[in-house]
């Protein structure tokens, strides 16, 4: 493998993508809302509710529906603390996965469908890179960036959660082992899922926007996980997270195998 070419393509793709507002804005806005603003709202919501005399019974009801495993994990906290920990540690866990999914999708859409739209693929196909190198480079840039943004978001979130929850909890309570598994096991897999789905979508898409909108459907499983947790069907325990990660890695492997089979110069030249 020609690593120089792979790194050059990955770096160029990122450089080009980051000059597209359609790529950069969601990468900035989503983490800002989810991982900076949201923790403070969730941490202070119970005290605002108390101050205004509003009942916080909705959250109470959600907690009551939770599986016993989660209630056991929260048993060492006061009722107010339980709500804070539940909201910041568990409720946001599936939402965190939207981050690598969205970043990898948006970058892959720019890299594949965007290249098609800008008519820049042909010159690339005339270079000595092999099909495998080209495929690896195209995936690597978006995947590495998605994982890096997710890791950074995680660090920011860790600081924000502990800072916002300090008045209620009084000590560092984040991350737990579930989050470690979520970030280092599930996040790379989810970033890979966003990528390979976008590779398939880009073949038929007319351009970046088209691909991004169609590929956006890939967040549906994550939303289902969120609904599943809020409704009390399941919760993000360490075991669930490890299992979800395994399933996504397996899906990645299968999709990647199909995508690599169809990623041949001749196909690209006629379809792109």
């Amino acid at each position, binding site marked *: 493998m020609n690593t120089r070419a792979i790194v050059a393509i990955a770096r160029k793709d990122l450089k080009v993508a980051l000059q597209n507002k359609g790529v950069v804005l969601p990468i900035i806005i989503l983490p800002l809302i989810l991982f900076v603003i949201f923790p403070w709202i969730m941490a202070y919501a119970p005290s605002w509710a108390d101050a205004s005399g509003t009942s916080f019974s909705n959250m109470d009801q959600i907690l009551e529906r939770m599986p016993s495993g989660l209630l056991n994990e929260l048993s060492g906290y006061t009722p107010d603390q339980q709500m804070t920990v539940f909201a910041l540690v568990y409720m946001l866990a599936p939402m965190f996965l939207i981050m690598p999914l969205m970043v990898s999708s948006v970058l892959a859409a720019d890299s594949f469908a965007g290249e098609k739209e800008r008519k820049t693929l042909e010159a690339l196909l*005339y270079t000595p890179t092999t099909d495998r190198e080209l495929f690896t480079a195209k995936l690597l840039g978006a995947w590495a960036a998605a994982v890096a943004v997710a890791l950074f978001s995680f660090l920011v979130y860790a600081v924000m959660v502990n800072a916002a929850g300090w008045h209620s909890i009084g000590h560092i309570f984040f991350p737990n082992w579930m989050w470690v598994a979520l970030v280092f096991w599930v996040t790379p897999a989810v970033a890979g899922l966003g990528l390979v789905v976008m590779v398939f979508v880009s073949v038929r898409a007319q351009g970046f926007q088209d691909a991004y909108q169609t590929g956006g459907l890939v967040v549906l499983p994550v939303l289902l996980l969120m609904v599943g947790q809020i409704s009390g069907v399941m919760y993000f325990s360490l075991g669930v997270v490890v299992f979800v990660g395994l399933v996504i890695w397996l899906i990645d492997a299968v999709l990647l195998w199909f995508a690599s089979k169809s990623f041949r110069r001749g196909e690209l030249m006629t379809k792109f």
Partner: protein
Amino acid sequence: MSAPAIQISSISRRFGETNAVDNLTLEVQSGEIFGFLGHNGAGKTTTVRLLNGVLEPTSGSARVFGLDPQAEGPALRARTGVLTETPSLDERLTARDNLSFYADLYNVPRADVPGRVNSLLTEFELVDRADEKVGGYSKGMKQRLALARALLHKPVVLFLDEPTAALDPVAARHVHALVENLARREGCTVFLCTHNLVEAQKLCDRVAVMEHGRLVALGTPSDLTRQYVKRLDVDLEVDPVQMDLALQTLQELPQLVISTPKREKELLTMTLSGRESIPELLSILVQKGLRVYRLAPQEANLEEVYFALNGGVG
């Protein structure tokens, strides 16, 4: 004689029901400037793609410097440079970044990249705007940058798809000089796809004319004009006092002179039935006592060949 730079054997490529390239066979010699002519959709770009291993043939085979485009694509593409029909540049990057990126892909030694990039930017008169984004460039500047990119790694075979299409006459002349220099001094083989028949006539050692994916003519420009353009325009200069006699004589030779001779100042212009008519015409004029100062054939050009092949005009 050395092996041909490009060998194409009965190669075909179909897209659905359409034969983009149909049973094409030809050879291009090393160091030759080879013109590949044809309408849009004649199969020129598809042939370039097949020769670079970017498309797979439906049948047939090709070799470029002995390398099989399908089996040895990466090694082959390391030795070829391609100017695509559209510049295919990243418009969000600067010219320098575009060239540096492709220098990495073509494995130009790292230490040589800045110098090589600068020298090409200078050669193509882009150095003053090298650090501007390509999106702000004119069509001609983009074309020059794309050409510079094709030369980055000093290819031994250069495929040029309409290299002067977006260029002004001065820039086009510069490209012509560059192509001639590459072929004549550096031994680079040039495969030139063009609609510009004057360009092909001027530059090419041999040309192939394609129509609907099929090769319809192949040879040097002069061979093709002789083969396909039978009639011949000539200028005749005689003693000015004998102009009337000359006109009368020419009008009496319809088997040789197929157009009505026209008097233009001191010259008579006419169309002959072919170059074979020249000796006989000259002989008759001398027998009539005409003092012939000059009988100059106007060489037919590739444009006439092209139209003769594509519409019966010629």
